[in-house]
């Protein structure tokens, strides 16, 4: 009997076009939008050697020329591909987009760029570093000439790894925060499904609920059956979004995909419990309950960096408690921890808090559902 009821609920959920759109299609569309919006940032982050022109006419001995030629990524990739030429030709190369900048070498080098961008920023940063190091070298030579023999100069002049990866080949990635927040938002969106299941089972919320309450089936049994159906259907949307992000958009979820999926499923349970709790305890019209949940889920997404990645850091710094009780942030942070950290400490902490919230909301729902007659319907 329970399996028949479970199957029927699944049919209801999968045939609900509106629910399907918001749970299955909307996250995919949003992920696609994110992909196109952040595509440029991602392209830049997959670093390629930068073409520059260099004019050192009349500069004499030029340590900058040497520093530019020696600058490398940690994997040995040169940062700059340099064309040594005169000023006029350098300008032409820049104009024809054959180089992204040209530098006029001297004791105070001058940088010419055509536009602003990540590569131009890298060149400028390099020159700033060079100027600072040159100043340090002059100071050392003036005040402690012995340092040359102590190898200090070699250390100071180190331009290897100017652009480097911070930890185990992974950079802190602002773009990933958007995708993780989207995944987290989709998880907690299950709240709407939780609400729907409560509406279908509570006599004071729907006529169907009244009919169910008159039947001999134990309400809690049916509630769990319906929630399981909602969890099944919603998990489908998460798996689809995960596969799309992982295989199509190529979002990096780190190395432990099983833990990533577990995070999503726990997030889905939290969402379902949240929706059920609001459905049972908020004594307002269904529309008001839906609005509360939308506000909560979208607000949670915003605070976890779905619209502005920096928001995640602002909340973590200014209102850490909010970060700990925002389920969207907890899921997003768990995903980020899996990507960024070697250890599972932070991931475990996020999952533990999510589980505590889920159990707490589950208990609240249970207490509310235990009520068997209503004061008014």
């Amino acid at each position, binding site marked *: *009997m329970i399996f*028949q*009821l479970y199957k*029927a609920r699944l*049919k*209801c*959920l999968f*045939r*609900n076009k509106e629910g399907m759109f918001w749970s299955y299609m909307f996250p995919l569309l949003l992920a696609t939008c994110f992909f196109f919006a952040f595509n440029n940032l991602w392209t830049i982050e997959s670093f390629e050697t930068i073409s520059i022109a260099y004019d050192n006419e009349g500069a004499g001995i030029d340590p900058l020329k040497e520093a530019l030629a020696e600058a490398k990524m940690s994997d040995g990739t040169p940062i700059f591909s340099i064309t040594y030429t005169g000023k006029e030709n350098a300008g032409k190369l820049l104009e024809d987009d054959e180089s992204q900048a040209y530098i006029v070498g001297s004791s105070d080098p001058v940088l010419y760029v055509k536009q602003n961008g990540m590569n131009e920023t890298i060149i400028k940063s390099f020159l700033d570093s060079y100027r600072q190091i040159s100043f340090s070298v002059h100071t050392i030579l003036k005040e402690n000439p012995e340092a040359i023999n102590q190898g200090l100069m070699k250390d100071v002049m180190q331009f290897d790894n100017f652009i480097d990866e911070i930890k185990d080949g992974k950079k802190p990635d602002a773009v990933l925060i958007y995708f993780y927040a989207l995944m987290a938002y989709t998880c907690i969106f299950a709240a709407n499904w939780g609400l729907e299941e409560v509406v279908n089972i509570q*006599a004071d919320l*729907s*006529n*169907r609920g*009244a*009919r*169910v*309450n*008159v*039947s*001999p*089936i*134990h309400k809690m049994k*049916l509630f769990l059956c319906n929630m399981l159906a909602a969890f099944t259907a919603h998990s489908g949307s998460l798996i689809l979004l995960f596969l799309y992000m992982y295989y199509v958009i190529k979002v990096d979820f780190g190395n432990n995909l099983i833990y990533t999926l577990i995070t999503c499923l726990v997030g889905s349970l939290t969402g379902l419990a949240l929706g059920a709790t609001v459905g049972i305890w908020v004594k307002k019209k269904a529309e008001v309950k839906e609005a509360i949940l939308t506000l909560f889920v979208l607000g949670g997404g915003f605070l976890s960096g779905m619209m502005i990645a920096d928001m995640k850091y602002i909340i973590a710094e200014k209102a850490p408690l909010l970060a700990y009780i925002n389920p969207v942030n907890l899921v997003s942070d768990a995903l980020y921890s899996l990507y960024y950290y070697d250890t599972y400490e932070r991931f475990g902490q996020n999952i533990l808090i999510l589980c505590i919230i889920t159990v707490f909301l589950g208990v609240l729902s249970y207490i509310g559902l235990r009520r*068997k*007659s*209503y*004061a*008014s*319907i």
Partner: protein
Amino acid sequence: MIVKVNGLVKRYDKLVALDYLDLEVQEGEIFGLLGPNGSGKTTAINCILSLLKYDKGTIEIFGKPMGPDAYKIKKDIGIIMQNVAVFDELTVYENISYFCSLYIKNKAEVKKLTNEAIEFVSLEDFKNFYPKKLSGGLLRRLNIACGIVHKPKLIILDEPTVAVDPQSRNKILEGIRKLNEEGATVIYTSHYMEEVEQLCTNIAIIDKGKVIAKGTKDELKAMISIGEIITIEAYRLEEAKLVQLKELPNIYSVDYKDNQLVVKSGCGKNNLVPVLQYLSDNNIHFGRVITELPTLNDVFLEITGKELRD
């Protein structure tokens, strides 16, 4: 006794929705709960079904106390609500099957009962339709099928014919009669007196949460002074003649307006003949004559001083 309600009180703050309501429904009858909108019919039904908490009173169904956990009792109850309670995403067949599954564990049995219910409400041609594609009448029939699919011993219908076309209404009433003939006890609430009069073997008239009269329709009609209402198209009737008419035996009210003479007589036979004789003897020309027996509305009117549909 199938249902026994004793001294049921339900208050919403200061509003008393049920005021020491007493009801008794015998096995095999179609029991009508008649009353105007807001009289407390649906509240009474919801309390009987343990959907609503109540302040005082006792409710027994099948001789046992009814409560939210009385699953054995609930197994034998079917409810057809005033508002259609089905899933828009399930077809006619799937809806009926779903609600049957709430009562019956065996899959084959569910299938058999679902098909029987579809046949009972004549929805064979629509079994793969979604509720949104059904007309109002067909939707009501689906609603009924969902409520009776498990073949309950007690069927409660709460205003099942509201906003239903006459053809579907007749079909629904026919169906209820058939269910009763097959052995089900029926509680039928309505504010349509014609339906209750036509269908119910026993009737309780309810107003302001209180039973104001109960009995068979004949017993109810016998409670009031009117036995017959005679309407005659009559011309040039003077006041003095009206006074004389009122003095005829068994006549207790005479009213004349716009050439329409309305004579209300008490219970008894041959009330019409003396009235027509009087008109003839006094050379009062008359035309069309209509005689009516009192309705439940007249009963309600006489007891409460207001129309049933007020």
